[in-house]
């Protein structure tokens, strides 16, 4: 799924071992077995479902952040947009009297418009995504606070709606199938379509991509609008999980999402990365913060260990690549020079 496929069959296994995703998978497996060995309830199905429920919203944001970062962009506004969509969803249902499904659909529409605003400023005015979304980060949160004047809280949603966030359907948390569908959709988009290839091309060299005939502006606009829609979906799920919508919903989620994407091996400069890497990133953070509770460790440690995890995972795969390059270079050096250098 990356840009450098192995050249011969014999390189295959070494290549797999060196991949960032493999390192991350090992880390995840280690976390799982470690917490399972000390926390008697850690490995239960109930707890697994707790982890899923608690990470769906951040997971959705991380999924949709992946194509954005692949294009060399960033979206700092997704957490604020989650808050704005949550309270607008509440307003549409409670004050405008719309039925829940219609309110949901409108909320997704609002998310698309908000994402469209980011897209417009980035592609049309050619402003840097960091600046644009830093602005909308404040704008969306500010709007949410202004609309509710910081105090209005939407609650008493019908139980049939709360099922989406709190109950199980067919034995799994109700939001899990939604997450899986979105995950598969974005995986296919990034890894199995020409769109996905164009995201990477744009991330590597936007001008090159433009000369190659890729409609850069349209593709970039697409990923930000998609982020808006998915952030709105996350807002609806969040509201169902908590049973309330308030202007502070999703505070700080943008950074959790970006952390998961970067931990998953996507380059912050764009061009390389994968959706399954992001999923592994989300999972290792979720397992870590949940596992610490079962290990009876204070919650503050979670932030610290996430940092250590990030540095370890990124550092070790960078180191592995460096060693491989060094070895490859040494093998190609003629023998007489090599003997001089290393007596």
């Amino acid at each position, binding site marked *: 799924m990356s840009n450098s496929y192995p050249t011969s069959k014999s390189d295959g296994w070494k290549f797999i071992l060196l991949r960032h995703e*493999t390192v991350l*998978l090992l880390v995840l497996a280690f976390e*799982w077995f470690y917490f399972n060995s000390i926390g008697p309830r850690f490995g239960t199905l109930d707890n697994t479902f*707790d982890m899923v429920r608690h990470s769906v919203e951040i997971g959705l944001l991380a999924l949709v952040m992946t194509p954005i970062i692949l294009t060399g962009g960033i979206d700092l506004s997704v957490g604020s947009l989650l808050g704005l969509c949550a309270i607008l969803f509440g307003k549409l249902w409670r004050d405008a009297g719309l039925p829940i499904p219609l309110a949901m659909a409108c909320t997704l529409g609002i998310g698309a418009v908000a994402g469209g605003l980011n897209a417009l400023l980035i592609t049309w005015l050619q402003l840097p995504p960091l600046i644009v979304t830093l602005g909308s980060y404040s704008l969306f949160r500010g709007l949410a606070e202004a609309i509710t004047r910081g105090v209005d*809280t939407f609650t008493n949603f019908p139980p049939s709606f709360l099922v989406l966030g709190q109950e199980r359907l067919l034995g799994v948390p109700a939001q899990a199938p939604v997450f899986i569908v979105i995950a598969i959709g974005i995986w296919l988009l990034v890894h199995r379509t020409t769109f996905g290839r164009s995201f990477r091309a744009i991330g590597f060299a936007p001008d090159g991509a433009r000369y190659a005939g890729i409609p850069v502006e349209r593709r970039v606009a697409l990923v930000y609008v998609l982020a808006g829609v998915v952030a709105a979906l996350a807002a609806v799920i969040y509201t169902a999980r908590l049973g*309330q919508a308030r202007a502070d919903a999703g505070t700080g989620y943008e950074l959790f999402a970006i952390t998961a994407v970067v931990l998953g091996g996507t380059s912050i400069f764009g061009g390389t990365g994968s959706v399954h890497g992001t999923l592994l990133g989300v999972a290792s953070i979720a397992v870590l913060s949940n596992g610490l509770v*079962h290990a009876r460790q204070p919650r503050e440690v979670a932030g610290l260990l996430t940092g250590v995890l990030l540095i370890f995972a990124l550092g070790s795969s960078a180191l592995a690549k460096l060693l491989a390059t060094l070895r490859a270079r040494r093998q190609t050096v003629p023998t007489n020079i090599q003997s001089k250098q290393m007596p």
Partner: protein
Amino acid sequence: MKKLLALFIGAGLAVATGCNKSSDSPASISRLSGGGKKFTIALMPKSKGNAYFISCKQGADAAARELGVDLVFDGPTDPDPAKQNEIIENWITLGVDVIAAACENKEGISTALRKARQKGIKVLTYDSDAAPDARSFFVNQATPEGIGDTLMDEAARLCGNDGEFAVITASLTAANMNEWQKHIEARRASKYPNMKMVALRPCDDLKDKAQSEATALLSANPNLKLLMAICSPAVPGAAEAVKQAGKTGRVKVIGLGLPSENRRYVKEGVTDSVILWKTKDLGYLTVQAAVALAKGELKAGVKTFKAGALGEFEIHDDNIVLGKPFIFNKDNIDQFDF
């Protein structure tokens, strides 16, 4: 494709080994604490770094040691309003015996607390309540009547039962403040008819606004003997105004607030008394009540409850009331660090 295969095998392995434990569901209680009847009490603050709750925890630790129970203290460390729910859900899975929570989001947390009760975990709230159907009891730190009476009694004592005073509140619409205000007025009318309230001013919960309001009150009412601030930022605000006007000692300051925010003014003699409850006692009482709830001694209809070293407490409906607020002054304020 090989790496994908490896990925799926690995993930499958992890899930398979994890899930084979799913048969033992959370019904059974207190297995975590290693056999016997050692209860696990989970105590949640509104936020973990808050000095108020750290002080609650000291009392809670003392009660847990006395009663020989495990105390888990955890709460949000960031402003994410979903965190309290996540921690509660983790506790449900952990299978704690009792959850005692100070609720940041009344409605939001109630859904998680109801779920805990469905799973057989006992739930009580302290400091700030959840929806009544989401918990068995609320450990109430102070009734509006207790707060109003204590403030008025202290004001009358300092003024010698005679003279003018003014009140600074957060806003004229805040429900809890209006309730306190009502009890202050009732106490004044019945016990201190010579005391006269000359003004009631809002400060929007801002210290600098409280200071400018207090300055205006001081110049408009030359006979003013006392300023009563009933929201916490207003107490140091009023004290600063009195100090800057050079009226230290001639105009007294009292109010509802944290000892730490007012220590300086109390020591300088600007503020006479700060009124709050003993947060350590609140933590102690909460854990005592939690254990009694776990043992089944505390249940609906019980009228009194004995909480270790603190003695008997009355129960009004489903409220366990900590009692009269405590008065912090020059003599005792150094013993408190919240």
